[in-house]
Structure formats: C-alpha cells, structure tokens
C-alpha cells in the first residue's frame, strides 16, 4: 500500500514518524524551494540534451 504523505513548504514530504531514527538535518523553506527549482530545470535540461524538442500529447488527449 502506498504511503500517506504530508505537505511541507508547499511540497510533498515524508511523514515525520518514518524518519525518526535517521533524521539528522535541518532544512528550511528556501533551501527546499532551491532544490525543487533546480530539479525542474535539470529535468528540462535533460530533455533538451537528448533532443531539440519534446513533443507531447495531441490536444484532444490532453
């Protein structure tokens, strides 16, 4: 069964009880935002690296 997740700083976050034994770090909201933005830009970069254009669904299927 998939897990329930929480929302922290506007993004999905693991339920804190699952991390009790190994959580060792403090991360604030802007650091979270920085990670998410970099992830999205990196994914765009990977698409551009492999092909000039990414073709997506025809309009009628969107």
């Amino acid at each position, binding site marked *: 069964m998939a897990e329930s*997740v929480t929302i*922290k*700083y506007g*993004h*999905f*976050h*693991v339920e804190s009880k699952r*991390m009790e034994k*190994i*959580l*060792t*770090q*403090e*991360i*604030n909201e*802007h*650091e*979270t*935002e*920085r*990670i*998410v*933005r*970099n*992830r999205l*830009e*990196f994914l*765009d*970069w990977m698409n551009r690296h492999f092909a000039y254009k990414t073709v997506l669904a025809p309009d009628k299927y969107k």
Partner: protein
Amino acid sequence: MGGKMSKQFISKKNFYDSPLEDGSAVSAELRRDCYAVFACRHKFCRDVCPVYLEERAEGGTSYGFHSALLAVSEGHGVLSEMVDTSQLCLECGACQLRCPNTLYTGDFYGQTTTTIDLVRKIRRDLIAQGTPPTNWENVDKYIQEDLDREKTAGDSMVRWAEDFDLPVSGQTMMFVDYFNAFQTTDVPRSAVKILKKAGVKFGILDKPFPTLGELYESDKKLWVSFAKENCKKLKNAGAETVIIVNPHDYIFFTSEYPKYFKVPFDVIYVTDYIWSLYEQGKLLFENEINIKATYHDPCTLNKQSLSWEAPRKLISAIAGIKFDADDRVTQWDYCCGNGLNSFKRLLPDVSYKVGLKRLSLAEELEVEQLIVACPHCLDQFTEVQTKSGSSIQPVHILDLVIKAAGIE
C-alpha cells in the same frame, strides 16, 4: 526596497561539529551520512565536478570524500591519509546539488548531501590534529594577511571609498569585504557609483571584520565571532537591508551565518539590487555597448543560491551586447578555478587549468568578453587570461552597467 525578505538557504548537520581524528571512532550519524552517498555509488557527483573533469581524481569527488570516510568508519584507513585528496575540492557546490539524494528527494526526506560542509569539516579536523591538507601553509599565510589587516589597517579599510564621502550608517548598508576593499577595488567603487546614480542612500562600515572562507576552514570559532561582529555593527548602523558585493559573502550571510545566529536584516546581492532599481526605472541604460559577450555564472549565485537571473537580465537589458551564454544547468560543471575558499592556494596549477578550461568554453562561442559577477572570478580570469594569452577578456558586470548608464 524594504519589506522584501531575503532568502536564507539553511541546511545544517550538527554532527559535523564533532571532530574526527586518527584513531577515534566515526559517529553513527557521520557513518550514515557518508553511507547515503556510498549507497548510490553511481557518481553523478563525479561528472559535474570541475576538478574531476580536469584531474580525473575520484578521491576528490563527493563520492570519494564520503566513501573514504565510510571506509575509515569500517576500519580501513585513517583521516590523515586524506591530506592530499582534501585539497581537491573547489567547494563549488555542483556535486551536492546534483546528488540524487538532494536533487530528487532532498525536499521530500529532508536529507541532502552536503559535501561542502563535509570538506570543511575534513580540512578543519586535519588541521586540528596537526596533519593539515598539503600546502596548507600557503592558505595560512593568506589568512594571516587578513588577520593582520584586521588588527592594523585602520583607515586603509575604506581607502577604496575615500572620494565618495559615504556615511557609516543608514537603513541600507553596503557590506564590502577585505578582498574587494584591498584587491578588486573597482568592484565596490562601481557598485557605489551605480547606487548613487539611482539615488540610493546608503552607508558602509568604517571597519569591517574579516569574512574570508579560508579562516572558516581552520578556525571556525574566530570566523563566526567576526561574522557576529559584522552583523552587530551593521545592525547598530541602522541596517535594514544589506547589499553584498562579493557573492562568497552573500553565501556566508544567507547560508552559513544563519546556522549559528539570526541575521537581523535583509541581505541582497548587488546584481539583484541593481536589477530591481532598473525595473523601478531608477536606473536607465542609455548607452549601447557593442561587444560580443558570454556570461559566467559564479558558483555561489548559481549552484548555491537562486540569484542567477539578475545578471542575465541586466546584460540583456543593455543595448548592443551580442549575448550568447550557456544556460545555468550547463554551467553546473563550470568554475573559474578560484573555488569558494582555500582551493586556489592549495592547488594553484589545477586552479589555473580549471580557469583555462572555462575560458576555452567561452572561446568556442566566438565571443570577445566573458562577463562575471564575482570579484574572485574577475581576479582569477584576469590572471588566467594574462598567463595563457587567451583572447577572452574578463569584465565585471558592474563595469558594463556603469557604461550603459552613462556614469563617469
């Protein structure tokens, strides 16, 4: 400008503060932290490392540092065997960002890879046990220069600004570090001229304390105490907003100081500040600058914070510049070669190679100038350009803004 809270990027692991030394056990937390990188072993970190791309030395990658310490924890090797590999890190931040633990799930699990902090810890612990990184004596000399200045410099601290008649207080303060105050004086001078032209009222400290990151790697306590003093002085001077002209300081104010104390004012990097002045119409770019140019993202504004847009916007707003720049993700594995803290003094030859590689990438774009937004990048590229005879001229973005705005 007031009211806009500055961004602080806080990522802190307290257990790095427990020193490691030859013969002592690795703590459970550090073992797990190192394992989190070893668990992957794919080494995405390796292939974005500007030093690896030149030297091919895996020991100096995020994988290398974490795995070597994990090996120590399992009884293989000791810390002092890392005196050479500990030199190899620029602290540019590419590896820790690119690590899947950060990039894909850092926000989800609240756990990320923090290689820069780990390398600082390794260097600090090596120094503390009397086996410093190879060539550390060169770094020590450099640190001593700033410590001497702090004790003796007096008025020369603000000699760079003596013709500006700037107050030593104000709601808006510009913080100028020793590197800018003594070496790249044109950078803070340009910043002052631009701010004055836009009608900004601001002050500077008459005697700032040292902020150099090299000291952070050898004597964290002293470095933090200087940081506190600087922030106290700025606050006492009435600062609500502090403009920073060295992106290394920007990272210290926004990512390092908040680990130890509350920074009691907003902090903004000079290019972000100038862009907002331009957007508000307080600064007009009247002159064309007819050059072919590219832009180098300082590691600190690109890989370590979110301040990479303003320089690009400013360049694009200046008429005449034929601008062709690699995107910021492509630039994750670029660096000028200076590094954030001690690298250039630990490995000057490799520093040169990394810088030369960056200039050659600019040459491929068939441009004349490489625009930078960091005084250390400017200093490094100027040195590499002179030594190599490269056709690429480094130029600080504030110089271009001055020309475009018709200042002087």
